[in-house]
């Protein structure tokens, strides 16, 4: 399941909704990305996320499908926000459920690594001096995503 939304979300409620009423799930892994006050050495005061409506949903759906074909998942969820966000707020949530913890861990890690380099979102940071600047691509994110291709 994927959701692209402006509104904030509740991590606990989302995990709950995914597992509630089910007794066949043994392992649930969640990843939450939050707005940090420091990024690459800059003092950040807020974040704005732009995205490409339509393509975003397609890419997220493809990434989720890929994860479900690689690992034994019973449920999965990707929520990604866009628009303005304050420090400490969640930006993205990934949840995976599996009978096996290894699958749940690997799939969630994969989802985040692929999402980071494929989903069409762009971050703009607000800094203390009133500047706004577009966040640059990170070499470490590119490497992290590649790991899942070479291991395949």
């Amino acid at each position, binding site marked *: 399941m994927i959701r692209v939304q402006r509104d904030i979300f509740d991590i606990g409620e989302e995990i709950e909704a995914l597992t509630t009423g089910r007794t066949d799930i043994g392992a649930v892994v969640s990843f939450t990305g939050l707005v940090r006050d420091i990024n690459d050495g800059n003092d950040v005061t807020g974040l704005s996320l732009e995205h490409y409506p339509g393509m975003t949903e397609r890419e997220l759906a493809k990434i989720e499908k890929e994860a479900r074909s690689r690992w034994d998942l019973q449920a999965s969820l990707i929520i990604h926000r866009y628009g303005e966000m304050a420090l400490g707020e969640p930006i993205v949530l990934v949840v995976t459920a599996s009978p096996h913890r290894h699958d749940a861990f690997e799939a969630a890690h994969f989802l985040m690594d692929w*999402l980071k380099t494929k989903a069409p979102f762009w971050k703009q940071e607000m800094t203390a001096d009133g500047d706004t600047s577009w966040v640059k691509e990170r070499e470490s994110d590119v490497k992290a995503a590649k790991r899942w291709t070479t291991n395949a």
Partner: protein
Amino acid sequence: MKILYFAWLKTKLQMTEETISWSEDCRDTDSLVRWMKTRGPAFAEVFSDLEVVRIAVNQEYITGNTTLGKEDEIAFFPPVTGG
């Protein structure tokens, strides 16, 4: 053809979206990029380093030169930074 710009490309070109008529100049993505560079200094600058420009046709990433038709939606944007 609908052309979309995102992130710093949008900021530099001061444009989020435009519609252009199909012509030989935009028969494929390579031609379109060549034509873009001729549209003035801002365009020349934005398309000077194609390493930092990603292209999507009809909301799918493309790899290599891609034929374009009248109804296509082409998007130009920098490497993504979500998550």
